[in-house]
């Protein structure tokens, strides 16, 4: 430890203005994301597992084709891309939920939030910059994974259900898979910001996305169908299907719109609470 500190130089003159300030926040949030090893590893694992699971699922479908029921076969032929992408979704959804929660809630569990807010006392831009960076990263990784899944899955199922990128709705579904994951990431980030405890937020969101929301299909009657159709993730994943299923009430873009509205409401709540609470 040096005994003196006479060598503090005056800091370089600063540029100001709104846009430069926000781009600095984006850069800082990007550094935050990439400098924590668990983020990098989770995303890599997500890609590898999703691609592997897609290959396994499509291969099993084809090899079990004659044993599966007529209606299952019909469902597959109706929307091959939806089922190819859907196979890996179960895994990637889980990973994105955990990551999204972690991105914000770990600031609280580690105490980093205090440093973050000392550096950026205007809290809304801080949360927005974090959201933009995370959503962009998840979208890129999500789209790349979706294309990877498609090009692995499509040749495997070719003999039973031929599908090409140029078929109606297919390209939209593949890119839509990336959109869905990006929106889910933002949804999870907002939940992490609201709940602020890693374990609680992860349990809550996974319980909702993977257990409660799909269970809503069992609600009886017309009311039940509508409740299920407008649940955030159930509506959102329609964007990753090329053709609507027999029970779907919303079009792909309507579904994604519903999911976006849910996410916007949660994010607004997160921003309101962030500005109100003591850090």
């Amino acid at each position, binding site marked *: 430890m040096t005994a003196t500190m006479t060598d503090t130089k005056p800091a370089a003159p600063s540029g100001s203005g709104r846009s430069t300030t926000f781009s600095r926040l984006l850069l800082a949030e990007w550094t935050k994301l990439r400098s924590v090893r668990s983020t990098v590893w989770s995303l890599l694992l997500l890609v590898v597992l999703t691609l592997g699971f897609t290959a396994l699922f499509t291969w099993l479908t084809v090899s079990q084709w004659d044993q599966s029921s007529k209606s299952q076969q019909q469902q597959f032929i109706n929307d091959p891309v939806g089922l190819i992408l859907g196979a890996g979704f179960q895994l990637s959804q889980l990973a994105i939920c955990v990551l999204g929660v972690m991105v914000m809630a770990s600031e609280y569990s580690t105490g980093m*939030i205090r440093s973050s807010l000392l550096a950026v006392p205007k809290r809304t831009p801080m949360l927005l910059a974090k959201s933009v960076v995370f959503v962009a990263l998840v979208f890129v990784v999500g789209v790349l994974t979706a294309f990877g899944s498609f090009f692995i899955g499509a040749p495997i199922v070719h003999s039973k259900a031929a599908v090409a990128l140029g078929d109606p709705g297919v390209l939209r579904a593949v890119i839509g898979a990336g959109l869905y994951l990006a929106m889910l990431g933002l949804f999870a980030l907002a939940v992490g910001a609201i709940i602020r405890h890693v374990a609680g937020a992860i349990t809550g969101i996974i319980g909702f996305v993977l257990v409660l929301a799909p269970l809503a299909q069992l609600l009886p009657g017309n009311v039940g169908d509508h409740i299920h159709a407008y649940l955030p993730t159930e509506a959102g994943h329609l964007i990753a299907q090329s053709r609507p299923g027999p029970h779907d009430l919303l079009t792909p873009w309507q579904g994604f719109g519903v999911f976006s509205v849910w996410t916007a409401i949660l994010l607004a709540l997160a921003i309101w609470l962030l500005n109100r609470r003591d850090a």
Partner: protein
Amino acid sequence: MIEVRDLSKSYGDKRAVDHLSFTIEPGKVTGFLGPNGAGKSTTMRMILGLDRPDGGTATIAGRPYRDLSEPLRMVGALLEARAVHSGRTAYNHLLVLAQTQGLARKRVDEVIDLIGLREAANKRAGGFSLGMGQRLGLAAAMLGDPQVLILDEPVNGLDPEGIHWIRNLMKELATQGRTIFVSSHLMNEMAVTADHLIVIGRGQLIADCPTHEFIARSSEKSVRVAGPDLTRLEQIISAEGGKVTAGTDGALTVSDLEAPRIGELAAREGLVLHELTPQLASLEEAFMELTRGSVEYGTQAQGAADPNTKPAPAQARPR
């Protein structure tokens, strides 16, 4: 300059900070002194915009912290609670903060060398000792070369060399005209560091004055007297108006009567004296006396360990 006006904050029924007002001037080290739970950290967190006051204002150079556009270039803060992501290296932690202020990477390296963090720069902060963690916090505080430093219990966890270093650092920074506001629950630590003291208890202001004045005002003078005939000594001292308490080691402690007068009395009576020593009450005792009524977590039995005493090393109490 830091200005606190009528600042208040409650947690449930408990008043943490109670209509507190003071001003911190640049060019000196101002100590913020009070027992544990007196509201020091809460006050600092409100100044830094982390906690929202129930009432009153806190400004730095005339503006609330939340309105500063590049706050780290103006204010450096070391908080008592941990404020680093445990999975990130020290270098990357500082880099993130530098990027928010538009500071160059070069400045991160400068600060790392300045604070003596070079060897640990690429280690993850989760594995840091208390002392290394404090240094990383100080590096973050110094990053923007700020004019105002707000340090909450900075010597906690530092080794004697580190304590010495940070004391000199604070004094030097104050000499350069900066505003240094540093909290401690240890009176002796403040006595050697601070030029000015703000003392609080139960969230209320107890004293706001230069350190030497605080010491003179709160130190009770007494005289230690010893000799073969203590009974006679006690009689003549009491007759002159001195207050006598018998010590356990065969000596008397006399207050309200000065040493020369006691010597004269003894000489007139022809009594032998073995010892005649003017004494100042220890600073720590004076501080405890002053804040007795306001200690948040007082102990019933005197001398019992305060359960809320922070893990400050013994070296933090140089005498």
